[in-house]
């Protein structure tokens, strides 16, 4: 045990480990804040769908040889998010079908593009690391970390300022509209922030596992807590703790970062599920 702690202490003196920790915790915090709203609005799959879109956009960026891939990925993902969350009502293709369609479509086209045009020798390896989280969380530059801190701060501030409105729009959109709350604007805000978080989180856990960061903490918290505020707080705590534990374990045992964090989230979900059974019984 002492050995492990010493090993961790040694690792934490390294700047790239510190960066990974900061970025990982911030992403976990942001995704859990939004996760509660997304799960309750029945948009659990939006994370999955959007991350596939981001994957497709990344493929386009790779093929086009654009060095700063964010310039392509971010706008495309934000646009898709707006499209998906807006199609809630009065559309020919229903919400879940739209998400499924865009998600698998982007995945297929992205993979195809990479396969046909990629100059890299290890196509399968590239694709795999994009899907399941690469080691790029450990190769972050200082600028990327600063960008992440800034975006996370914006997300948290927006969330606190609009907390009551988000609650109302999530709980009952028709009532909010009737009392003059501009629910369309808040839905748009949710869509944009979701997209930003997903693009950020791609580095951490990869596009296939982002949904886990969004839904597991929220679902765990909802098992046990009874008010919206306590669910949000608990979900944020779970998510941050799981990300920290996951990152440390993955460093010590050399397991894949994304999968380790998600495993921690799953474990917590089962613990909370059992607690809820005892509380009810």
């Amino acid at each position, binding site marked *: 045990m002492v050995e492990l702690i010493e090993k961790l202490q040694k690792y934490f003196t390294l700047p790239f480990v510190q960066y990974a920790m900061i970025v990982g915790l911030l992403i976990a915090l942001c995704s859990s804040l939004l996760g509660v709203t997304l799960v309750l609005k029945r948009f659990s799959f939006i994370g999955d769908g959007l991350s596939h879109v981001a994957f497709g956009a990344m493929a386009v960026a790779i093929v086009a040889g654009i060095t700063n891939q964010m310039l392509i990925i971010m706008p495309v993902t934000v646009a898709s998010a707006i499209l998906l969350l807006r199609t809630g009502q009065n559309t020919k293709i229903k919400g879940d079908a739209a998400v499924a369609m865009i998600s698998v479509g982007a995945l297929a086209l992205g993979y195809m593009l990479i396969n046909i045009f990629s100059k890299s020798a290890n196509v399968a390896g590239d694709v795999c690391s994009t899907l399941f989280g690469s080691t790029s969380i450990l190769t972050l530059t200082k600028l990327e970390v600063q960008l992440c801190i800034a975006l996370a701060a914006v997300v948290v501030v927006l969330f606190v300022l609009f907390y*009551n409105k988000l609650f109302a729009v999530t709980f*009952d959109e028709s*009532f909010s509209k*009737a*009392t*003059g709350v501009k629910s369309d604007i808040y839905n748009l805000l949710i869509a944009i922030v979701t997209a930003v978080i997903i693009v950020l989180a791609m580095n951490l856990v990869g596009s296939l596992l982002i949904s886990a960061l969004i839904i597991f903490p929220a679902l765990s918290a909802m098992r046990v807590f009874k*008010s919206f505020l306590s669910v949000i707080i608990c979900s944020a705590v779970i998510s941050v703790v799981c990300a920290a534990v996951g990152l440390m374990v993955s460093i010590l045992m050399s397991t894949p970062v994304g999968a380790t964090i998600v495993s921690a989230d799953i474990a917590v979900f089962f613990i909370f599920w059992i607690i809820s059974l005892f509380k009810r019984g």
Partner: protein
Amino acid sequence: MSEREVQISCVGCSLGYEGETVVSDINFEVRAGDYLCILGENGSGKSTLVKALLGLKSPNTGEIRRGGGVGAGEIGYLPQQTVVQRDFPASVREIVQSGCLGKTGLRPFYNAAEKALAAKNMERLGITDLAKRCYRELSGGQQQRVLLARALCAADKILLLDEPVTGLDPKAQLDLYELISKLNKNGITIIMVSHDINAAMMFSSHILHIGGQKQLFFGSKDDYMNSPVGRSFILSEGGEIDG
């Protein structure tokens, strides 16, 4: 009767989506203290009319006028329950307070006056002791009281209730109707969309009956009971003429 202010009047309205008319020639008015029941079968355009009354949708032709201190966002609305709400983790207080949101504008949090208003309305509907309870653990009747308290936070002059008793057991239905009736006697105007002809006959003061894409009747309850359309509807729905 003519002394009471007209709060909403609907003049020659036709409503619909994208040029397709759902219901036309709607003419009625609601005065302060009225208890108007909107009757009609499914698909007759009731929910479209509700949206128009709330100001979420403008009529294709005609006009909806608001007066008597009732602005566009000042109708307390009790929507039909959605699936989302049934397992929503929120305390009763959080939900009732959210009724004050229309008043906060760009201010991010509730002020003391709004919190007091929420507390007052919880007291009024007898749910103060439930304030910390979780919404999803309440009975159907209690949930409707919570949503009514929320609606009263949004507007204290006029309430619009969309099928409020759906899914409640008979005892809870009666309780809710009596509560609504009590609010009405305390001076709150009630507009209720309903299937329930018996309750309409028992509690309301006015009836608006729509069907077959048009308005079949508008007037006082007594006139409705003596009108051909009223008589046939009451009989077909198994209600009793003398209510």
